[in-house]
């Protein structure tokens, strides 16, 4: 695990929230849920105004130089804060793993990227491994069965599989967390992959949906909005919709007024 930077423990940590472009566009309540959780945990949450996107679409599609520019401006924007927290595994991975790799040829920038990396956290992992604070629980999901889908970035880039499960068990009183039969496999999103190869993506998400349905889950949650948009986008067309789809921050923060992601327009 990464080392926690030396910040004076007596003062409230200044946490920059990077909401990610997908949350900004499609699911703003995830950002507000994240703020709620972080404030409950005693953080001073700041949302830097000039934030946009971490640059993954360019980075993963051959625009290396443009991604370097994005990395630099994102580092500049976020380095003044004690911590940077994102409600997304893949964007966290981009900042903490891929920025340092992108900037490895430039000593000064590499140092700044490493420094940002050491204080960048995925939301759940931050709450559990970095803060270890006591958060308010709620009983709004009592009797509900919840299934958690590990995003590939959370699992493989951040080694972050226990924190989200621990939080669900601790905060959602009376809920029942069930595991997928095949938690290792990708949901088929893959960013631009889902648009470039829609039929392969469809096959993968259909397998994933079957697995989720078989658990009998009422709600599927994940820490990445990309996976959720993919799964919800596909299941929205099912009749009846087999389960609700929500970001994990929503259920942890008891931010449940917004309808499930599967309640979109139906064909």
């Amino acid at each position: 695990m990464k080392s926690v930077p030396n910040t004076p423990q007596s003062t409230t940590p200044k946490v920059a929230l990077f909401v990610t472009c997908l949350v900004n566009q499609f699911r703003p309540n995830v950002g507000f849920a994240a703020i709620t959780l972080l404030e409950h945990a005693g953080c001073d949450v700041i949302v830097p105004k000039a934030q946009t996107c971490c640059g993954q679409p360019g980075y993963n599609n051959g625009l290396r130089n443009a991604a370097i520019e994005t990395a630099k401006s994102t580092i500049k924007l976020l380095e003044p804060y004690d911590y940077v927290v994102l409600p997304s595994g893949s964007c966290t991975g981009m900042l903490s793993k891929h920025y340092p790799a992108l900037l490895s040829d430039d000593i000064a920038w590499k140092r700044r990227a490493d420094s940002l990396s050491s204080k960048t956290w995925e939301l759940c992992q931050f709450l559990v491994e970095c803060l270890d604070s006591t958060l308010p629980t709620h009983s709004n999901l009592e009797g509900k069965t919840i299934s958690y889908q590990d995003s590939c970035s959370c699992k493989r880039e951040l080694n972050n599989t226990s924190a989200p499960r621990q939080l669900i068990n601790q905060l959602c009183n009376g809920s029942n967390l069930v595991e997928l039969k095949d938690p290792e496999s990708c949901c088929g999103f893959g960013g631009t992959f889902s648009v470039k190869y829609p039929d392969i993506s469809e096959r993968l998400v259909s397998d994933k949906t079957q697995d989720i349905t078989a658990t009998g889950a009422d709600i599927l949650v994940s820490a990445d909005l990309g996976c959720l948009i993919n799964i919800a986008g596909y299941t929205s067309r099912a009749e009846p919709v087999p389960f609700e789809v929500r970001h994990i921050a929503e259920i942890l923060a008891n931010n449940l007024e917004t309808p499930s992601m599967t309640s979109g327009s139906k064909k």
Partner: protein
Amino acid sequence: MKPGKPTSPETQSNPPIHSETSSNQALFFKAKSSEALLDDTLQQALKKAQGGFIEKRSQAIADVENFDSYKQQAQLVKNHTLDHLAYYLTQFEENVTKNGGHVHWASTPEQLNNIILHICERRDAKSVTKGKSMISEEANLNAALEAAGIDVTETDLGEYIIQLAKEPPSHIIVPAIHKTRQQVEALFRETHDLGERDLDNIAALVDEARLQLRQKFLDADVGITGANMLIADTGSAMVVTNEGNGDLTATLPKVHIVTASIEKVVPDLESASAILRVLARSATGQPITSYTSLFSGPSGIEDLDGPDEFHVILLDNQRSQMLGSPFEDMLKCIKCGACLNHCPVYSAVGGHAYGWVYPGPMGSVLTPLMTGLKQSSDLPNASTFCGRCEEVCPMGIPLPELLRQLRNKEHEDHLTSWKTRFSLKGFMWGIQHPRVFHWITKTLRMILANSVLTRLLEKHVLTSWYSSKELPKNYSKGTFMEQYQQDSKQKKSKQKKS
């Protein structure tokens, strides 16, 4: 090449050999993968295969104390060897010669074929048996031998099945993984003239192949195998099989030819042991295969069996170009197939969609490097970057990063469509300009809130997404940034009032 006509490997005027198997069909990945998804028999075969491999591997790894340490040792060996490749190749050549064998050098697959044809003709060979060799697949050797009038028989059961079906392999260790037993039965009935018989179970199918191939082994003039490793220190080729076909191929004919690529060399037997320890566990989930054999030359005066000639042909085929390049890590590949077995895309579409010899993640890196990126530009993109291939690779090859590098190259070389380039460049420019970006996201939210405009978007812009999925609905009154700024303003004004 005409049968009977003497060939010299130096003859460069031979037309390059191309057929269904060796020519690169990767251009058609998209079409072929869509076909594969609709092929029920193929889907049935793939579903059966995938789970088994994953389970067996994870069991084999759980059975040992520290698989990560095994991986580390194997990687140490490969890193060291690649750093001193010229030295170890030289040592290997010296020692093969010391053992009474011959080493040949081929820059291109065509040259490899020509050397083999040359040896076959010198020995007046009429029939050849082959153990599994991916190098010979790179060269499409079978077609070259057949064109020269030589009867060639693949002896690995999977390779034999696809040879009968006139298909290329669809997996590097299980070439006929895409065939069901019913398909194999039909193939055997069609090609073996054995009359009425029961073939409705796998045992009967395997027995029939054994019977057919036994005579081929005994009759062959030349045996050609691949090699999993070449041992510099002893001048030996190591061949790993479960069936024993490699051993029969190497032992019964009068000539044994080993085809291998240059990066297969390792310093010594201790190094080979480190790689053996991860190879079968990653491939089939076995601690070691049934047969691990070391071939070190022709038979001696005392030997009662074995060939009287031993050749090793070393193929380069772009590998020396990968050395010292950003793709050098790919030379660590030991061809275990773990990345195929764990790849969601491979598991969905099978191997043939990839269009050349090597499928799955390793193939998506190797095919562009060996046959040209332009001819295989789909392959580096056919990955969700889920990272499972890198996780299971015993040699720690950063496959997603190598695919990303190829995508960079595609962009630099203008191999992507102008539409893609335009929209990506536009997006990346937009995120460097926060004001513009936030204006666009606001506008987009409004478009998506309007059902007529959304339908237009669905029909004309995001058609491939909408082919099976809906876009999520934003239930808020704006983007997050809009909302957040409004909230903060309200808070501030409240504070002022109070």
